[in-house]
């Protein structure tokens, strides 16, 4: 077992453990903080995949913006957190069975796929992933249209969020 594999296993266990805490812990502020540690583990996974830019964007956008937004929302809807009622449905076992079935189905399907245990090719020397990504995102022959649609979507979401949450008295 190489050092890379040991690092991967540690990070994967940390990520999955934090994700389990997100869905099972009763206190919502703790759940949001466990989400932060899950997202950080995923950022390390991106770094292991040589996708440095995606890892940085994960930390900046997910941890810096989305997780903080969750903590704000938890605190704005705080009154419900103090009640001692159950945080899960009465038929939570049905959800657990369904989740296990989905995982088993995905694992079974992946196992039958020929490229399942493929190993990565060595990156070519001087490979500039960030530059290539920027070119692809702004080139008319590549992904400029999805890029622009995503920016319009963000603008619409911004206006919509302000309109929906605005206190009209």
């Amino acid at each position, binding site marked *: 077992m*190489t050092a*890379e*594999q040991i690092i*991967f296993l540690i990070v*994967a266990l940390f*990520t*999955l453990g934090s*994700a389990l805490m*997100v*869905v099972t812990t009763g206190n*919502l502020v703790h*759940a949001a903080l466990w989400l932060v540690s899950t997202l950080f583990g*995923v950022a390390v*996974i*991106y770094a292991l995949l040589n*996708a440095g*830019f*995606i890892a940085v*964007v994960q930390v900046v*956008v*997910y941890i810096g*913006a*989305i997780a903080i*937004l*969750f903590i*704000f929302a938890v605190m*704005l*809807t705080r*009154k*419900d957190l103090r009640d001692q*009622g*159950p945080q*899960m*449905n009465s038929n939570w076992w049905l*959800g657990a069975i369904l*989740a296990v079935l989905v*995982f088993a189905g*995905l*694992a079974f399907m992946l196992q039958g796929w020929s*490229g*399942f*245990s493929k*190993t*990565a090719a060595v*990156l*070519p020397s001087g*490979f500039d*992933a960030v530059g*290539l*990504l920027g070119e692809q995102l702004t080139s008319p022959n590549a*992904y400029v249209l999805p*890029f622009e649609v*995503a920016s319009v*979507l*963000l603008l619409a*979401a911004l206006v*919509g*969020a302000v309109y*929906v*949450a605005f206190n009209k008295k």
Partner: protein
Amino acid sequence: MIPLSWYLILAAALFSIGLFGVLVRRNAVAILLGVELMLNAVNINLVSFWRYADVSAMTGQVFAIIVFAVAAAEVSVGLALVISVYRSRNTVIANDLNLMKW
């Protein structure tokens, strides 16, 4: 080297945990937390397929960026809806929001 299967199994497990959260949590904010876990699982798949296929085709990373944008839009509108519902109904428990249920 790490085989592709490890990343795919990790992403499948993360997706299933997120699905469990979406199905069983009662609080609407906690349901959105589960959705975030599922989106992250998808992103791990996209980036690992980029790395293990032709690295000069950046499709996987480009779509990971698009998923980031969609996740930000989804969570901002979703949390605005939750806050708006909390203002008018004074609850964020998904079971109690049955105004349109016949």
